[in-house]
């Protein structure tokens, strides 16, 4: 490590603050707080000066890799650039300084924005009604599956306990099904990388609650038989859930609602260009067809005859609240700005360029990396290190070597049905120059694998830390710092 932990810096008694003298009589803690709640030892806090603190965290921030610092082709995560203007808009005082307890008539602008965003998302999805509450994609999935469960229960159909999930699905799909109390059942893919229709027909029955599907799937391929798939599930009385993680490939061109899906979640932090993860927070709105609207989380935002916006809590069949207040509002502002700035034509262009970039990379890489499904893909595709196997180089090694060249590696070892895979999603915001450089780098790594495999197998060499021992970390995790005795 080139930077010590903050606990290992400073010296005893050093402080980064000075307080004015106390001007009220001092009282013993024990007089104010019951003894059993008082700690016996002082907390082991860092004892550092202000400048040590500032330098420490500033230095750590330079170790980050983000889409603002470099290419980030992390498959199924849509790490597109987030326009800075949307940050500025979310910081407008009228948005940023709102309080969720303010009376409705003082927050009409915010409610209007949320209402319109819900309408826009429903339009893009081909659905009827939206909730903006869920705070992330997986949270949206859970909300959607709770809606499906509520729908079946309300009809008195309590034997629907199975949720069908393809073997290419995002891991969150089966996890969500289980979390909501369903049994996840796997349906295999065919040799084309799409859902095996015959296998699906055998699986669906009167116990099927839903099919969860990503389209395009995690191989980056569009499920061509989606209408037939939807019919099979619907005829058995089940519903269709659309995992919107890959929506960046089809926006403006195809609508999940038209494909027969009943529920969808979007990841605003993927498709609609708001920041991811720790820099987020996220947002996973859920849109449904009209017949499922009564089960949406409450409150929903409605528009009155006089043009006023209000929270409607009068939803007796609602699954209830899934988030404190109304969701991550700042994220909604950014997504709304993105949608309005691009417009319908602009959103189509986003999908077009995302798909074009992925296909460009696929075509450029096929001589050096094995492309298991080498046909027109959507916004992402998978490649493997099969051709490097004879040199003892695995996909993990290629990914680690990419770090030396300043790239965030693609998603690796997913989807599970292809060995040694990497899943590459360039997104629409990257230039041809960036893509060309990335191709050259991957070609260089293939050359290195041939001529100097050790160099690749021991990578990374030029990063803050070298290759980490993930095995020991997983087998014997040390997750808390402790002071040396």
């Amino acid at each position, binding site marked *: 490590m080139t930077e010590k932990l903050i606990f290992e810096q400073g010296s005893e008694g050093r402080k980064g603050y000075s307080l004015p003298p106390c001007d009220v009589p001092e009282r013993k803690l024990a007089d104010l707080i019951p003894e059993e709640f008082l700690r016996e030892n002082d907390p082991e806090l860092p004892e550092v000066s202000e400048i040590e603190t500032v330098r420490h965290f500033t230095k750590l921030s330079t170790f980050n890799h983000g889409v603002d610092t470099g290419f980030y082709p992390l498959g199924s995560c849509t790490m597109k650039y987030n326009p800075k203007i949307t940050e500025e808009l979310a910081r407008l005082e009228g948005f940023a300084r709102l309080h969720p307890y303010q009376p409705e008539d003082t927050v009409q602008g915010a409610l209007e924005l949320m209402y319109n965003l819900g309408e826009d998302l429903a339009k893009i999805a081909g659905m009827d009604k939206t909730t903006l509450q869920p705070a992330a994609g997986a949270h949206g999935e859970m909300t959607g599956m709770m809606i499906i469960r509520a729908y079946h229960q309300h009809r008195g159909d309590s034997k629907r306990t199975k949720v069908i999930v393809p073997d290419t699905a995002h891991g969150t799909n089966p996890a969500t099904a289980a979390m909501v109390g369903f049994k996840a059942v796997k349906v295999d893919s065919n040799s084309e990388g799409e859902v095996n229709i015959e296998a699906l027909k055998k699986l669906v029955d009167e116990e099927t609650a839903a099919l969860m599907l990503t389209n395009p799937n995690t191989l980056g391929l569009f499920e061509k038989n989606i209408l037939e798939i939807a019919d099979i599930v619907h005829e058995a009385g089940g519903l269709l859930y659309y995992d919107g993680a890959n929506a960046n490939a089809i926006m403006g061109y195809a609508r999940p609602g038209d494909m027969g899906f009943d529920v969808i979640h979007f990841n605003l932090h993927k498709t609609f260009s708001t920041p991811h993860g720790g820099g987020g927070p996220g947002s996973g709105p859920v849109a449904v067809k009209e017949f499922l609207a009564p089960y949406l989380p409450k409150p929903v935002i409605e528009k009155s005859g006089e043009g006023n916006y209000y929270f409607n809590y009068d939803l007796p069949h609602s699954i209830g609240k899934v988030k404190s207040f109304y969701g991550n509002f700042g994220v909604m502002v950014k997504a709304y700005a993105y949608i309005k700035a691009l417009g319908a034509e602009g959103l189509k262009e986003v999908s077009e360029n995302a798909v074009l970039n992925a296909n460009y990379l696929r075509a450029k890489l096929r001589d050096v990396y094995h492309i298991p499904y080498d046909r027109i893909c959507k916004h992402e595709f998978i490649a493997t290190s099969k051709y490097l196997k004879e040199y003892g180089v695995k996909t*993990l090694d290629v990914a680690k070597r990419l770090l030396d060249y300043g790239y965030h590696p693609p998603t*690796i*070892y*997913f989807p*599970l049905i292809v*060995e040694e895979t990497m899943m590459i999603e360039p997104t629409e915001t990257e230039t041809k120059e960036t893509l060309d450089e990335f191709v050259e780098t991957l070609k260089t790594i293939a050359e290195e694998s041939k001529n100097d495999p050790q160099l690749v197998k021991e990578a990374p060499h030029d990063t803050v830390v070298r290759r980490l021992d*993930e*095995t020991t970390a*997983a*087998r014997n995790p040390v997750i808390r710092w402790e002071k040396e005795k």
Partner: protein
Amino acid sequence: MYPENLKYTKDHEWVKIEGDKVKIGITYHAQDALGDVVFVELPEVDDEFEAGESFGTVESVKAVSDCYAPVSGKITAINEDILDSPELVNSSPYDDGWFIEMEVTDSSELDQLMNSEEYQKYLEEEE
């Protein structure tokens, strides 16, 4: 790498027949493809499984995978050593790294399994 005295499944488990019981683990190929195994989840003794049903999971630094019962039956023993030392699955997949022992309900199911030669051919085809 694929002992002659064992039977094999398409899900890369091996089966060792010992009278009316079978011992089950994952093959050399399976542990190699998974990479370093960091966690194994096993069923409890007396649990019953149908052939093809998931009886546990094996987690490596790359992925979590299900383990499927090659035949129907009741669990008679589990290898507790691999719970504490999952590395045994990598270092000794056919001996110290075994997973479970089952009492077989229907011995005809054993005929469906592959022998060593057939399994190796299957692996080549999968490539």
